[in-house]
């Protein structure tokens, strides 16, 4: 219990650190939001009034703290270019990016585990060698290029889905999920190749241990031994990798969303970067940092679930 409290405190500290860095970074760059809102021919009085209204005349640290307090309440300020509350702009985009990330994660796990087991079973034989070469190639494929290839092959040649035909989740949920399958495959494949490689090595390392010999001697088949005994131990390093992969998948989804024309967090981040719409950029960054931190917390908890040995070492 104490361990979890400590972890949650770390999470909060990290988030506050990230938010401070982001806020300070946008403070340093030249440019006056009030000036850009009113234009260069504004009277000094109007400028001063607006600056006061926007709170720009207060010292930096006061502004940061009040922004932080508002963030905790769920109010991320008002977008400079759209004049709408940031939370309203982001709120309906967040589920899209999260669904995409979760789907990619599911694909990664579903594809990589059986493949790695198969490769480990036929280790150093033709099947393993072939898969190994393919795996190396897939590791090198950028997900957005894969996205373009998938659009061409499955969208334009085979007509399995309509490229650019994104369907909103509030309109047609199954259709929405169906459209996200190809993008999530594009995000998942490079990560999947990496997991296959790690998991294969990890399984082979486990395979020499005594408990595996015991399991065989009790009459289990290779697949039974693999899935019931070996995998449990071999997965431990993979959980760490998957936890870190989530962050990369979110970053990957920003690019892949552009390939498939999905209006998720990525698009809003890119447009606000080009519009220099700082409240939105800050909010998106803090939100992504939040998701990443929560993921690493979940990984820590999972770690203890699958490896009871960790419990003892940490609580001392």
């Amino acid at each position, binding site marked *: 219990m104490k361990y979890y409290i400590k972890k949650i405190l770390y999470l909060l500290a990290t988030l506050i650190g990230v938010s401070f860095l982001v806020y300070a970074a946008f403070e340093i760059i030249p440019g006056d939001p009030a000036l850009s809102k009113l234009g260069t021919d504004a009277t000094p009085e109007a400028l001063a009034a607006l600056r006061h209204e926007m709170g720009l005349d207060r010292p930096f640290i006061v502004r940061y703290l009040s922004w932080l307090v508002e963030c905790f309440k769920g109010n991320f300020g008002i977008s400079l270019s759209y004049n709408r509350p940031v939370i309203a702009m982001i709120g309906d985009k967040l589920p899209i990016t999260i669904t995409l990330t979760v789907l990619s994660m599911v694909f990664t796990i579903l594809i990589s585990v059986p493949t790695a087991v198969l490769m480990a079973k036929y280790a150093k034989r033709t099947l393993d060698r072939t898969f190994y070469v393919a795996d*190396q190639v897939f590791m090198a494929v950028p997900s*957005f290029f894969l996205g*373009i290839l998938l659009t061409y092959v499955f969208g334009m040649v085979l007509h399995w889905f309509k490229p650019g035909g994104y369907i909103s989740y509030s309109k047609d949920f199954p259709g929405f999920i169906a459209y996200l399958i190809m993008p999530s495959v594009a995000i998942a494949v490079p990560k999947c190749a990496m997991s296959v490689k790690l998991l294969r090595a990890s399984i082979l390392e486990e395979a020499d241990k005594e408990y595996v010999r015991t399991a065989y001697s009790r009459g289990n088949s290779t697949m039974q031994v693999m899935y019931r005994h070996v995998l449990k131990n071999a997965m431990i390093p993979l959980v760490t990798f998957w936890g870190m992969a989530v962050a990369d998948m979110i970053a990957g989804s920003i690019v892949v969303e552009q390939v498939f024309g999905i209006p998720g967090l990525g698009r809003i981040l890119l447009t606000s970067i080009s519009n220099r719409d700082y409240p939105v950029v800050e909010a998106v960054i803090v939100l992504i940092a939040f998701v990443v931190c929560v993921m690493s917390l979940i990984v820590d908890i999972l770690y203890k679930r699958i490896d009871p040995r960790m419990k003892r070492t940490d609580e001392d």
Partner: protein
Amino acid sequence: MKIKSFVKRFFKKYHGFNFVCGLVICGIIFLAAFIAVFHTPYGSTEMNASLKFASPSFAHIFGCDNYGRDIFSRVLEGIRNTFFIALTTVFIGTFAGIVIGAGCGYYGGRLDHVLMRVNDALFAFPSVLLALVIISLLGPSSFNVTIALGIAFIPSFARIVRSEYKKQAALDYVQSAKLMGAGDLRIIFVHILPNILPVLMSSVMIGFNNAVLAEAGLSYLGIGVQPPNASLGRMLSEAQSYIFTAPWYALFPGLMIIIMVLGFSLLSEGISENS
């Protein structure tokens, strides 16, 4: 003579399949990048309306794009740009990473603790995203992308270097060097650094790959290399609109990215499995 024996030793140590394949691919890529500095078959911005979407032929082996520019020349220039951006990025990341990581790992103490917490916070953050934030501050250009990616890669290098220094600092040879009166800087750079070189080399290669992929991604989003300069990522985003009429336009830049990344990942694998 000394160099010759060094080369001999090097190849005696590294001769696995992965290493040789990686070396050949990287050699070709490096040669392509080097030649593209001085010469490309056609001008990379030379337009020719009659060759619009010309399919691959002997004159234009990768075909032509929507302005009738030779894709092979543009790919060569793209490789060159990507290669140098990735190289500079890795150089910034490694250099700063070594300084920070070595200081933290060797001295330890409170500063190490604070720096590593900051580092963990940054490390948890995807480097493409970090670069995106920095570019949004500096404005899009290929120079800024290099700086942004370089900064974004510092945390991962610092982390690796620190853990290696921590391991090495406890070993006997460091203690005896200390007893012999060697200064801290001498121990850090002359005694410990050569010992962590294999680990560092392999992570530099991986870092290079990540830099290539990140640069391609950022250029694809339109915030890396600016037109009319060629970049593999940017070519892909342009090619996407014409994928039905000219699939080769998208295919070749993409394949080049894959080959480049594959070469360096094989090299990294070869180094780490033989040392």
